[in-house]
């Protein structure tokens, strides 16, 4: 470990200059500089959206964005973090909604203000085509929005920059919830299993299993049939196991 042999360079954190070794993520570079995070740090694995960071590098006019826990610190980079973007979440009751084409625009009418400037897509750290999913939202294609936005981590970077003041991640979240609840079918078999459990179909076997001593339990355990990993259509030799034991 230690820092022998590591090359150091400067970065500017909220305007202040620090020397940090190469090879660290922005997040770790800030920690090396002495920050103990309260904000801008959650999963440390690129999935929670807490650490969105904006920066410029020398010689480029561009204001870039990245997740601090994923992107490497670069020499002379000037960074600032925006852990919170106040976003607009409309009030709705999912159960009462229907998957009609105009529903997203009814709940979030500001989507019609989109200027197609593509700023959102350019900044998204998850490389989502945000402008495209907003376009599909305007067209009313809920399923398309759901799939295109699936990797959104709600970092808010797009919403912070949108000239039309759209909170894209909340439009997408609504689309996904409508898709999951009202477009995908309720899974077959699930209701049946729940009512079987409620009516006590497994009660006896579970009660008996909970009363077994360890040795007896092990004997039952090793009799389980293993469903093969590769087979798509498989039928166990004894579909009544372990009910049939009791």
């Amino acid at each position: 470990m230690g820092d022998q042999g590591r090359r150091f360079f400067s970065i500017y954190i909220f305007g202040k200059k620090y020397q940090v070794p190469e090879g660290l993520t922005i997040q770790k570079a800030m920690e090396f500089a002495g920050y103990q995070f309260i904000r801008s740090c959650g999963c440390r694995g690129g999935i929670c959206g807490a650490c969105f960071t904006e920066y410029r590098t020398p010689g480029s006019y561009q204001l870039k964005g990245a997740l601090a826990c994923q992107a490497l610190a670069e020499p002379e980079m000037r960074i600032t973090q925006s852990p919170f973007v106040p976003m607009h979440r409309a009030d709705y009751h999912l159960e009462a909604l229907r998957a009609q084409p105009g529903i997203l625009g009814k709940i979030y009418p500001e989507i019609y203000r989109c200027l197609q400037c593509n700023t959102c897509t350019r900044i998204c750290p998850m490389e989502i085509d945000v402008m495209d999913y907003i376009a599909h939202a305007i067209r009313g294609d809920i399923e398309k929005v759901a799939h295109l936005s699936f990797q959104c981590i709600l970092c808010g970077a797009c919403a912070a920059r949108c000239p039309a003041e759209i909170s894209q991640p909340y439009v997408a979240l609504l689309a996904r919830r409508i898709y999951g609840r009202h477009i995908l079918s309720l899974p077959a078999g699930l209701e049946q299993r729940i009512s079987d459990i409620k009516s006590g179909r497994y009660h006896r076997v579970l009660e008996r299993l909970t009363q077994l001593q360890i040795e007896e339990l092990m004997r039952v355990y090793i009799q389980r049939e293993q469903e093969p990993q590769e087979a798509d259509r498989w039928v166990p030799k004894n579909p009544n196991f372990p009910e049939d034991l009791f």
Partner: protein
Amino acid sequence: MLSLKERQELLQRFHPDYREGGRREIRVGVNRGERVPNELADLFEGISLVRPGEIDLDHVRQEVDVLVIGGGGGGAAAALFAAESGAKTLVTTKLRFGDSNTIMAEGGIQAAVGKFDSPALHYLDTLGGGGFQNLPHLVHALVSDAPVILDWLVRLGVMFDRKENGDLLASFAGGQCRRRVHSAADYTGMEIMRVLRDEVYGQGIEVLEFSPAVDLVLDEKRRCAGAVFVDLDTGERFVIRAKTVILATGGIGRLHIQGFPTTNHYGATADGLVIANRAGARMIFMDSIQFHPTGTAYPEQLMGLLVSEAFRGWSAQLVNGEGERFIHELETRDITSSATIREVVDRKKGVITPTGMHGVWLDTPLVEIKKGKGTIHRIFPHLFHRFHTYGIDITKEPVLVYPTQHYQNGGLLIDASGETTVQNLFAAGEVSGGVHGRNRLGGNSLLDIFVFGRRAGMEAASRAKEIVIGKLSLDHVIEYEEELERLGVLKREIKAPLLLPDYRYEKALGRVHQ
């Protein structure tokens, strides 16, 4: 697959839980005599962040029926069910609402809904995974509620993976005799958490962020009656009084047990265990930590981060430096981690990574070969993206992995309604223990947090209707410290709970701290 006897031998020789010197006994309080990892024992001997006399318990900032501490999946579920049962509910959390281990879950959630599956098989698998030591009545609750939970999540709009005919897609995790894990690509935790968070907002439930609990408050009958919090920005301490309290503070990965890296989020620092222990809540199996066999070993920036078990469920194999497969893909995590450590430490067949760490190969390209081209993009988009950032294409190249600290198998002892041994204090999720015995199966934690979050939420809400809170007290904190002092083990330099890990300065270079 290994026999039960072979499993036991492998664990005893190579599992970190069995390593000499890694654990020690708790010296004071209700859990005296329990063995826990040293890193946790240290916190149990530290001093409270609440100094006696510094805080006026007659001055409460807010009063609620149900106080939920912890804003992950367990806390969100508890809050939703408590509020639905009519209780005035408040969610408090240390970081942002949703910053949690829940949001990081990749693989999925178990529920026995398949045609040839049943709650009874789920029961057997869960006990076999836990070394047959799980508390039976808790597992009974777990497997019986599983389909209800899945249905609840579907109705909230969670986009679970489906087959072409619309049926739920199920896959394998280690230790399962049936395909039973339901996923939303490798985003399962994120997908569920963002939906639950949205629902909590939609229901108008109040959420207080960046305000960790630093001690529980009891009344004169030693029933839980609220908590002391600290505002992380201003340092202000304040009291919230509640008729019932639900602790859902998650796990302990960031204690880096035995120097292991971890898959856990930044706030997984055992706070709930520390404050509940002081308040007199019993623990179970806290000597048992889960090490996940496939933590990332390279590149260094991703050290310890999880590579989903679902890869093995989808046919990827673990192979050593000589290209030999050394363990069956569907063995449980404790076994697979032990086998990996044996391969590297004992058989010397590991791989040295470009940065000098140990690892073995997880043959990810096999997924594309066996399950068809495009499978990785479809099932593992997040992991593909994460490695791609570092120039590694996991559809073509295998990845280097090594065991990483993943999960606390044990925790606070609860009954089937989620209540701890302290009256009116409930616990839900990773902070609780018993249901998984000494080793949790993949997909059973997401299930656990919702099953017991729901049960705790409903029970805490109905209990709250009858409760009249007595006089608030922090005597238990003072007594606990006095007892430590008498034994000469009080560690004044350690503030407990830890709240935030310290990775500043040179520590940022430590490889385990990603």
